[in-house]
């Protein structure tokens, strides 16, 4: 076989020969591009109207705004401040100065989320140094436009990200998602099984939160993709369905 040759200082050749040519669908590209244009025109019109209405609330919301950079970790949802991701978090710090613990399962793994000053949601997952430190940080993972407001009752980003493809659990894949802050749990369906995840409220500002969940999905093979999740349902405190998305296989 062709052994990858060093490319300058890189030990692998990223310019390896392509075993298959790209197979992009030009008609789909053009069609989608036109739809984006059309939607953008509508959005611009809507934004102009919304900005006109929202001026008053922005002025009120701006008063008394403070930023604390990891000074206190109050509440059960606070993550340890000495996380190995601190340096990367510092580049996009949480608006309220806190990381929110999303999950500490499985053992030695910690997953946190936070909302930046630009109202983007970020997450990080890391393993303790004693177990061989490793980490994965996505910031921003979701842009502001994908973050549901406190009054929203629908998924915004559905099931948007997969991390740690090489999991020590063989075929278990972590899936992070955003949902309405009114949701307390989310049920995902994959490979014919339901997986339940608790929704953790992550502070945005001024008492508002967004719901973040983490589910571990066990795949029968060694690959996993979005199409494997066929349904997502969010429930509120009373057990009522407040959002339901089907992704037909």
């Amino acid at each position: 076989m062709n052994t990858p040759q060093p490319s300058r200082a890189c030990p692998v050749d990223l310019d390896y020969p392509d075993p298959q040519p790209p197979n992009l669908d030009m008609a789909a590209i053009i069609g989608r591009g036109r739809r984006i244009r059309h939607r953008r025109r509508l959005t611009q019109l809507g934004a102009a109207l919304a900005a006109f209405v929202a001026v008053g609330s922005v002025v009120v919301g701006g008063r008394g705004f403070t930023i604390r950079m990891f000074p206190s970790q109050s509440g059960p949802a606070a993550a340890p401040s000495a996380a190995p991701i601190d340096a990367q978090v510092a580049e996009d710090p949480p608006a309220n100065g806190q990381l929110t613990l999303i999950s500490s399962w499985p053992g030695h793994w910690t997953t946190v989320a936070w909302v930046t000053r630009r109202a983007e949601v970020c997450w990080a997952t890391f393993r303790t140094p004693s177990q061989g430190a490793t980490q994965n940080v996505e910031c921003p993972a979701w842009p502001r436009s994908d973050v549901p407001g406190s009054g929203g009752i629908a998924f915004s980003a559905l099931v948007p990200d997969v991390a740690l493809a090489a999991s020590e659990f063989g075929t278990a894949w972590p899936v992070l998602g955003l949902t309405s802050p009114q949701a307390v749990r989310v049920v995902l369906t994959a490979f014919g099984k339901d997986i339940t995840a608790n929704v953790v409220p992550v502070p945005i500002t001024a008492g508002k939160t967004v719901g973040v969940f983490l589910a571990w999905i066990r795949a029968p093979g060694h690959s996993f993709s979005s199409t494997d999740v066929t349904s997502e349902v969010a429930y509120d405190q009373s057990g009522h369905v407040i959002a339901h998305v089907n992704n037909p296989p």
Partner: protein
Amino acid sequence: MSRHDELGDFTDFVMGYQGKMVRLAELLTGDRGRAEDLAQDGFAKAYAVWDRIRDGDPAAYVRRCIINANTDWWRRRVRYEQPSPQVPEVFGHVDLVAASAARDLVLRALAKLTSRERAVLALRFYLDLSELQIARELGISPGTVKSATSRALTKLRADAELRSEVTS
């Protein structure tokens, strides 16, 4: 400019850059299908603003779309993936088995890096961008680019599988 000219220009642009953009996305994601999704989506966004970017650096625009979309690929895949009626042609001059093996080895090695490290390596060593350009593309400081590159190279050099391949 007529719509016909616009389409022709854009089609030429896609044909000229699709290989590079799909490869960039493949290096970022480690998955060919997802890479084509991201590249296709990036080109679609470029077409949406073609009037504005065509005289500038449209390739940089698509590149940025791919990098930004990499963390939020899920919905696009569900909504926009469509089977293509075209059967891919085969490169006659490429040893397919060797090429696949080389690609798999590289992608397996990159999968052990963080997403930021993969992005930095792809931009630096595949697209030959400077540290400053990479910092701008990723919205991070040049110092972070440098440290991420260093960490990534250290990991790759320590990769036992890569070392055994190079030795053999």
